[in-house]
């Protein structure tokens, strides 16, 4: 049973974590480049310089002393997102949608007192959410108002789009839809829904929720398959340009679709997870091998995107 399970995974071209590390992230992502993406502030600055749209930074807290001034600094902004600069896996992110009676309202409607917000920010500074527990910065930034196309298929929180980019070629993508189980977070292991995306057309394929294949959103009941992601070509372009921006060979680019501002790059992950294969019900390995074989023939952005749409589309 073991051996056959093993062989079937191999045949499906599933990329395992050992192979991802040994053959992709370790050789293609030089260690000196990792700080560029580990610190979201650096990534944001880099993207701004490269002309890649990112959520606007409202404020940043670096030292404990600044925590109390937080409310003052944020007062012009009715809604915002607090996130650790060096967080991973969505940990430590709090989305504030508004205020009421001097308190802050979270996505799920719960109210946070001012001191609770301050404590959370202090925790971020202390390094609770950062890799290795190093002291961290807390970023307060623009809260994305997601595009109405996702309204029917997400439950609180912001759905985001993850695109794996290998050597500048987008190879696989999924949209992560928050559910009631994920507390508005767009992380698959926290209970969000992952729907694979046809690279050629930008339409969602089947979706996966907690290792189960589903066709409808468990909270809203609306179909999650065959939804056209607006601005898909622009998203592919942003993702592909992130490769030129960071120099990382193998990365996961997280994008959001804002109602007014269009696609925005949220963050880049140098060790993107493998669940995207479940959402797409396809293995990454054959696609990565295709890129390895052809990338010397793909000199510029246009050719890489064209290669992606020609090779990794599902509908023919």
């Amino acid at each position, binding site marked *: 049973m*073991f051996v056959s*399970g*093993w062989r*079937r*995974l*191999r*045949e*499906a071209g*599933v990329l*395992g*974590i*050992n*192979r991802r*590390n*040994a*053959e992709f992230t370790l*050789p293609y992502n030089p260690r000196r480049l990792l700080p560029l993406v580990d610190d979201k502030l650096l990534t944001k600055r880099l993207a701004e310089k490269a002309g890649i749209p990112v959520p606007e930074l409202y404020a940043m807290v670096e030292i*404990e002393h600044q925590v109390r001034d937080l409310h003052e600094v944020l007062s012009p902004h009715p809604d915002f997102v607090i996130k650790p600069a060096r967080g991973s896996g969505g*940990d*430590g992110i709090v989305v504030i949608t508004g205020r009421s009676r001097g308190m802050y309202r979270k996505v799920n409607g719960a109210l946070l007192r001012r*001191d*609770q917000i*301050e*404590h959370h920010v*202090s*925790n971020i*500074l*202390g*390094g*609770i*959410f950062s890799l290795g527990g190093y002291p961290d910065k807390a970023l307060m930034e623009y809260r994305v108002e997601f595009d109405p196309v996702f309204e029917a298929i997400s439950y609180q929180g912001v759905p985001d789009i993850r695109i794996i980019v290998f050597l500048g070629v987008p190879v696989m993508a999924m949209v992560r839809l928050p559910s009631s189980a994920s507390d508005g977070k767009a992380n698959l*292991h*926290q209970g969000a829904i992952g729907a694979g995306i046809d690279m050629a057309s930008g339409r969602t394929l089947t979706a*996966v929720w907690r*290792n*189960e*294949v589903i066709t409808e959103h468990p909270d809203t009941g609306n179909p999650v398959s065959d939804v056209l992601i607006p601005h898909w070509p622009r998203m592919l372009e942003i993702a592909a340009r992130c490769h030129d921006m960071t120099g990382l060979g193998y990365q996961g680019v997280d994008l959001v679709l804002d109602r007014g501002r269009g696609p925005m790059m949220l963050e880049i992950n140098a060790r993107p997870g*493998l669940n995207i*294969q*479940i959402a797409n*019900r*396809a*293995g990454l390995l054959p696609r990565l091998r295709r890129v390895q074989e052809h990338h010397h023939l793909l000199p510029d952005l246009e050719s890489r995107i064209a290669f992606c749409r020609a090779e990794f589309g599902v509908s023919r």
Partner: protein
Amino acid sequence: MRPDASSRQLRNIVILLVAVAIGVFAFKVLALGFPLRVKPGAESWDVEAKIVLAARGQPVKVVLRLPSDSAAFVVHDEAFISHNFGLTINTSGGNRQALWSVRKASGQQILYYRAVVRQLPIAASRREPAPSVPEQPGFSEAKLAAAQSLIKAAQARSADLETFVPQLLRRLHDRQDGRARVLLGSNPTARKRADIAARLLTLAGHPTAIVHGLLLKQQERDAAPVEWLRVQDGKGWQWFNARSGAMGQPRNFLPWWSGADPLVTVSGAGRVKTSLALIRTEETALGGATERGRRIAPRLFALSLFSLPIDMQLVYRVILVVPIGVFVLVLLRNLVGLKTFGTFMPVLIALAFRQTELVWGLVLFSVLVALGLLARFYLERLKLLLVPRLAAVLIIVVLLMAAMSVVSHLWGLPQGLSVALFPMVILTMTIERMSIVWEERGAGEAIQEGAGSLAAASLAYLVMNLPWLQHLVFVFPELLLLVLAAVMLMGRYSGYRLSELYRFKALSKDGR
């Protein structure tokens, strides 16, 4: 390309490591005869001498005669526990002895001597060296006549030494015999009888030494020393039971000290009570090998870990199995895909399990982490900053450890005392990480990761505690090069983890 070059390099290093390890290992086994495993049949005992004395505020000097290596036994892992006494070890009259001294002491003082004695297999036994015996029996004029008369009577009824000794002892132990009374006085102790018997035999032309020792049993709390006589018969030294006169030495007789002196002499204190205790222990493989190594190849021995003092050897016994535990962890994480808190935390927990035993270790660890988590959840409500909060958790962990030790001691559960051996910093970090995972990802994931850590620790413990494996890495530390090679190869293992077979099951179904 770079990956190819580094693969080749890795392959060469691995080949080199394996070659060196196998080479050294084979040389030691084949050419030098290092034992691959301990021969069965070797047995060992923990022996303990406990001296309780009442000091009177004066300088106190305590001499304890110590056992030495003998034909059938090897003494090692000696420990001296003496509160504030100074300790020197010297040799006097053919005996090793411990000399405890203190300038000023008052009240009850307790001194301990502990050692492990190992019985060598018959094949490995060597000849006993000749004992040192006094030249003169040293009888006074009055006693000399009684002694000579007693000897004459015994000689008349015996043909050789084997029959002479029992005859002599029977007369000496006969309370009705006036000559025996002259020699022994009233109420003679066993030691006194043995002493007189030895002097009688010396007077009869058979130089004799008294050997005091213990008859090793399964266990005994208050063992009494028994005396044997070593009598020269012209060809060699024969053993006789000092009580019955029977010839021969039982295999379970552990010679402790020789001569007429008592086991303990004390000056400067009163009311001395000495007790000997012994308990049979499981053969721990290593000790036997150590001693055999010393006997078999003394030169090479000097270059091995065996040449280190016993306490350092004990440290290395533990340190050398750590790589094995780490290797287990590498397999569990990269081959199986088990999630654990912290990279090497389970190995450190496994080390603590060595002291607590597995089941107790699991219970103690779980209780400690659970209580620590409760405290941590409460601290969360107080909104403390990270580092002070970690410090607070650490202090609470220390207090919990102390409390658990005290409670388990009150309940008479000695295993609970060993909770003190858990690495508290690791516990603190585990509690912190677990509480964060608990809050961020839910209780399920936190408990799953905690259980994964304990499973990894248990497996690492079980593997690290395999006696033959401990023996192998201690006798052949070069085998760790193999572990190094294996770990390096695992560093390039890019196949699936077992957990991924489950994780991506949905994919393999449609994988066509």
